[in-house]
């Protein structure tokens, strides 16, 4: 197998994630923490992020239904999700979080709903792209495929 070609593909894929605005500098900071002692650290963080953000989105959806027009509550939920997005550098998702919070501040229910839908789309896109990226990295590694964590 041409590992150098796979690594080039992975590098290109990662560049695309940054160029398209899905990831920001914070992702590189997370990458800098990866070392021989924690060779899959970035992927572990990503898995944890998608698990946690999925939960937070679900909580928010329930809150939107259970507590109509409770913008303070909605904002508090979104603040948590925004923080999580910031920690991994999920830039587009973070932008939608901020738009949602802006709409909370304006008391705009439709705006909030629209932002949430966009946020869910960005969540799904980023998850799919990062899954592909990490799969490629695993293939490109010197030891070949590793156990695939569930995102």
């Amino acid at each position, binding site marked *: 197998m041409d590992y150098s070609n796979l690594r080039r593909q992975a590098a290109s894929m990662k560049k695309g994630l940054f160029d398209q605005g899905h990831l920001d500098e*914070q992702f590189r*900071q*997370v990458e*800098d*923490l990866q070392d021989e002692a*924690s060779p899959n*650290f970035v992927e*572990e*963080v990503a898995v*944890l*992020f998608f698990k*946690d953000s999925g939960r937070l989105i679900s909580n928010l959806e329930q809150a939107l239904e259970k507590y109509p027009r409770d913008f303070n509550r909605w904002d*508090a939920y979104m*603040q*948590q999700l*925004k*923080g*999580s997005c*910031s*920690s*991994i*550098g999920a830039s587009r998702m973070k932008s939608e979080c901020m738009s949602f919070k802006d709409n909370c501040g304006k008391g705009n229910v439709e705006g909030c709903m629209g932002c949430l839908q966009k946020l869910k789309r960005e969540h799904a896109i980023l998850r799919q792209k990062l899954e592909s990226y990490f799969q490629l990295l695993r293939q490109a590694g010197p030891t070949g495929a590793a156990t695939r964590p569930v995102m």
Partner: protein
Amino acid sequence: MTTSTVQGSPVKALIVEDTPVHALILSTILRKFHCEITVAENGNEAVQLFLEGKKFDIIFCDKEMPVMSGPEAIEKIRALGESHVKIVGVSAGYDLEQSFMSAGADIFLPKPMKFDVVGPIIQEVMNKKNNSMV
């Protein structure tokens, strides 16, 4: 500063953070500086640790958490007489610094945290700890 320059007995760090990703990243940073790490998921858990007699050299504390916020926990910890422990308030809003400092925090760091600011803080805590043991 590199992790290899950190010497002496390990710094005991308490992370008070309800966001798992933040807690994992900060734990990883602190492990690189050979810290002993405990994680509390909210301010109340953090206060309980001190009530149980646990001691820490440094606390990294988020602001908004369920059950008890960071500043409230910091106030209670200081009220227990824990004046020596270095407390770092960590939050995404720059305008939240005052609430941490008023509660008794020593430093405020904005999120997302820049990793290279942590090392000097840990080194300072370690120097103080080792000097107090002489």
